[in-house]
């Protein structure tokens, strides 16, 4: 079993980046790897709650993010600075996350066997 980290750093509707990262995270969970997802900067906004892509006529991938819990993906990390920048607290997020300082993010990267930047 490998420690695999998926990194996202694009905003929610920038291309399909967040959706690709979510797919990849779920797949590594399905094949029993020790997978984590790190949301840097504006990627954090993908897990802001009460949003509706359907309001724009687009697929509501915000709902799909909740399937992480069904697949037991519990290691979702967000950047402390991004939380401050976008004035979010954990109650405003759609899934449970661990908030990391920059030095904790550095340590997280060091522990991984593979890191995938999407």
């Amino acid at each position, binding site marked *: 079993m490998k420690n695999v980290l998926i990194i996202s750093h694009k905003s929610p*509707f920038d291309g399909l980046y967040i959706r690709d990262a979510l797919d990849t995270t779920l797949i590594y969970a399905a094949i029993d790897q020790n997978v984590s997802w790190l949301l840097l900067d*504006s990627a954090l906004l993908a897990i802001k709650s009460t949003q*509706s892509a359907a309001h*724009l006529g687009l697929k509501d991938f915000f709902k799909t993010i909740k399937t992480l819990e069904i697949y037991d993906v519990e290691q979702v990390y967000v950047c402390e600075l991004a939380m401050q920048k976008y*004035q979010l607290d954990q109650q405003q997020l759609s899934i449970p996350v661990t908030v990391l300082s920059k030095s904790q993010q550095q340590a997280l990267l060091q522990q991984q066997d593979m890191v995938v930047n999407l």
Partner: protein
Amino acid sequence: MNINTVHMLSKPYSYYSTIQLDKLIASNDALLLIGDACYDHASYMGLSDKCYMLESCATARAISVDTGINLISDIEWVALVDNAKKSITW
């Protein structure tokens, strides 16, 4: 109100850091936030006193309205661009 340029932005402010937008926006220009730029309205507000945000984009993102930013409809969006000399999509 004569607007020279409507600057259309669809990403958070830091996405444009290499361009140094703040120095390119003139006092008779307007900012229009669409798409993911709406999340970051706080960063944009200081750049211009004419700051607009597309209402449908803000609503989908569960963004509450600040004073100092004007929520506009699609029809008002067209009027904003039409009344300006030109637009730039960054």
